[in-house]
């Protein structure tokens, strides 16, 4: 598949998930139980991006020693829990990562 076709399909599926409920659904078709479970979607999906990017190297092998990403992610997470602030989380993570690779 060409890159453009891939982009268009990804755009279509993104649009359709946004549009389908607005266009088709009546409010009653979504009960509280389904809403509750859907509210877990970010917690269920985002870690599948986060964990491999931190613990695995480019070829997919475990990289647990000499890996500054682990410590930087832990610092970012702690700052995130304390501050509840998205920007503070990203900046503290990047700053500690750079500190670990350039200074230590």
């Amino acid at each position, binding site marked *: 598949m060409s*890159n453009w076709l*891939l982009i268009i399909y990804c*755009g279509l599926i993104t649009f359709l998930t946004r549009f389908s409920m607005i266009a088709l659904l009546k409010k009653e078709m979504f009960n509280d139980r389904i809403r509750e479970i859907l509210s877990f979607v970010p*917690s269920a999906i985002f870690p599948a991006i986060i964990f491999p990017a931190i*613990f695995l190297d480019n070829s997919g092998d475990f990289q647990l020693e000499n890996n500054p990403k682990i410590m930087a992610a832990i610092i970012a997470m702690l700052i995130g829990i304390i501050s509840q602030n998205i920007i503070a989380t990203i900046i503290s993570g990047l700053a500690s990562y750079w500190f670990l690779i350039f200074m230590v």
Partner: protein
Amino acid sequence: MDNKFRVFLKGIFDVSLLMIPVVPFGLIFGVLSIDIGFSPIETMGMSLIVFGGASQIVLLQLFSGGASSLVIISSVGAVNSRHLLYGAVVSEHLSDLKLIWKIVISYFLVDQAFARSNEYFKKNKDKDKYFHLFGGGITCWVIWQTTTFLGIVLGAFIPEKLGLSFAVPLTFLALLVNDFRKLINVIVIIISGLVATFGFNYVPYKAYVIVAGVTALLTAAILTKLNKKNE
């Protein structure tokens, strides 16, 4: 002042603080996309056609890992399934709109605009209230396109040594800050992460995002059920 315009401006105003985190996210997307090998036009095209930060980053991540198109598209669908929730929540406020407006609003229904307009819809009953979501959505759109463009331009000057790709897991981590304090969410986060990490080399077709997501969502369904029984 025209009421529609007033509500539109209110939408822009309400969403503006939430735009601060979008700036680094857009820059990172632009930089990474060029780094991975997409052309500047394709990168801009992604932001214009897809217009969804998480979707676009997942697209890049899986594309660079050599995943097939089918897996990339279905993973983007999995990431987007949260929009089903947004749509269902706002649909009751938009049911009287013409189809063309439903299409326009759907394109602009991104996380930040949804969060702000949903609060506004709950408090306001006037018939022009959808202009709030329109204003918030357009604000997100302008910021996203501008920062993507800046990322494409800046990408050429950012040394690889900086390890900017680490900003991707960090950005997603930051989107979860509100969930770290809830026990069920923490369990779901750990399960998803472990399944993805250990399944990375073993799940066929790089479908690890989908397998981890479904496993973790089932866990959430079971845990919330058990939680209710105990109450």
